[in-house]
């Protein structure tokens, strides 16, 4: 057991993964991840080649080059850094390179703000990366291995999210695996077509015109479905080592729940604490869903969970988004409405926006959402938690 911040947990996982190449550029609040990792490199505890690049665009480009060569590349970013990588994120996924990236979620400018919201990772959700969200430092640590193994199985890059500052800078207890267990679990990286294999030369990233580009994209769509299918097997294998479980969609108290909240990252912990502190008469009526695997979104599973809950008692769902999709529904709300569209017996879905730019969310705020849902004191207008009206 170690006392570690979320950022240190990510760096510790990276130490055990011992990636061949780590090209990084610091940015608040991701900086302590690379700071901790550079200390690990300086102490000679890993064999990683750390490349200090001049921007995040270069960081991701170097990761692409390294991974294409046949190396394991891991990096980390936040906010504007992730935005600057945008072009190369698509190159990584299009070239089917299973790069691993830790994200400490932070608001995107403007106004400039260094605090947590999910506009950065939600803003790159169409870029072909697997996205796994973490409630706390322990999940950050565990998810690194889960994401890496899944990514390499289906040849797609993956990012592991943690809330900037809230998780990245808070000390928590961390249970760690032995280095040997991690080595066994992740195994050696066996790229199918490494660029450095001179016995079997290949050309990567060449132009594809209208005659084949579409087919290549169709393969990527297929890989995302495979990630959805193969996730459970990888998660179960990791569970055997850690004793913790990693369902794509984690449910709490859904039996008999009339109203549930859907949320991801650290606020899932706040919501769980709030739910447990409700008076008995209310607590029996509410539940919580935490989304772990956001991309590929587990539509089928979500639909099945809700179908079953509706069969019991479920009437309303409040989806809490820490990001907005300006001009449209918030990202998670949209996914959920989409997943439930075909259900004949649908619960009401309400969208709540909270925590933009690091605005605090408290247990009392979550409690109020639950009480509003149960007492039907809500409507289909989007609600803003903690915003001055």
């Amino acid at each position: 057991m170690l006392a570690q911040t979320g950022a240190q947990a990510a760096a510790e996982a990276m130490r055990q993964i011992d990636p061949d190449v780590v090209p990084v550029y610091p940015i608040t609040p991701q900086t302590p991840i690379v700071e901790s990792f550079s200390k690990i490199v300086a102490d000679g505890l890993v064999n990683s080649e750390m490349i200090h690049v001049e921007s995040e665009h270069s960081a991701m480009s170097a990761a692409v080059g390294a991974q294409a060569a046949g190396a394991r590349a891991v990096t980390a970013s936040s906010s504007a850094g992730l935005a600057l990588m945008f072009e190369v994120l698509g190159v990584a996924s299009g070239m089917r390179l299973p790069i691993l990236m830790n994200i400490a979620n932070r608001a995107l400018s403007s106004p400039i703000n260094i605090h947590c919201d999910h506009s950065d990772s939600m803003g790159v959700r169409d870029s072909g990366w697997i996205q796994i969200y973490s409630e706390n430092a322990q999940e950050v640590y565990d998810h690194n291995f889960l994401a890496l193994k899944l990514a390499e199985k289906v040849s797609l890059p993956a990012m592991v999210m943690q809330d900037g500052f809230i998780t990245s800078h808070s000390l928590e207890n961390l249970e760690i695996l032995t280095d040997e267990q991690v080595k066994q679990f992740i195994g050696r990286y066996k790229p199918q077509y490494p660029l450095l294999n001179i016995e079997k030369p290949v050309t990567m990233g060449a132009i594809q015109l209208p005659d084949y580009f579409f087919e290549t994209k169709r393969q990527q769509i297929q890989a995302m479905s495979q990630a959805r299918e193969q996730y459970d097997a990888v998660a179960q294998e990791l569970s055997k080592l850690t004793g913790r479980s990693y369902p794509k969609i984690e449910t709490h108290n859904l039996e008999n729940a009339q109203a549930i909240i859907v949320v991801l990252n650290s606020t899932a912990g706040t919501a769980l604490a709030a739910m447990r502190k409700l008076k008995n008469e209310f607590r029996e009526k509410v539940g919580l869903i935490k989304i772990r695997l956001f991309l590929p979104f587990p539509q089928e599973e979500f639909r099945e969970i809700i179908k079953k809950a509706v069969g019991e008692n479920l009437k309303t769902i409040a989806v809490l988004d820490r990001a907005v999709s300006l001009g449209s529904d918030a990202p998670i709300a949209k996914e959920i409405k989409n997943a439930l569209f075909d259900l004949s017996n649908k619960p009401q879905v309400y969208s709540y926006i909270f925590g933009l730019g690091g605005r605090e969310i408290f247990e009392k705020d979550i409690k109020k959402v639950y009480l509003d849902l149960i007492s039907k004191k809500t409507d289909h207008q989007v609600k803003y938690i903690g915003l001055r009206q």
Partner: protein
Amino acid sequence: MGYNQSQKLKSWKDIPPAGLILSPGNSRENKTGSWSNKKPFFDDKKCTQCQLCVNACPEAAINSGKDKKISVNPDYCKGCAACVEACPRKAIKLN
């Protein structure tokens, strides 16, 4: 794609991932003219077989046989009309 396409295109299940090219020297397989929507036609009556169009073609898509008769390989012609401009006899039309 295009017309006169002589290549049989493969399904997404039968191509390497990520648009990888697995064997060198494959430029020959890449029918670069697939996207052009017009190809040149030669009027044999007007053509004096001067060969100016052969040199003008940036894709080397115009051939002249032993008999000096001019023909175009549509797989590589990009429809740029450089040959049309080059022909002193106005013997070429794009269609």
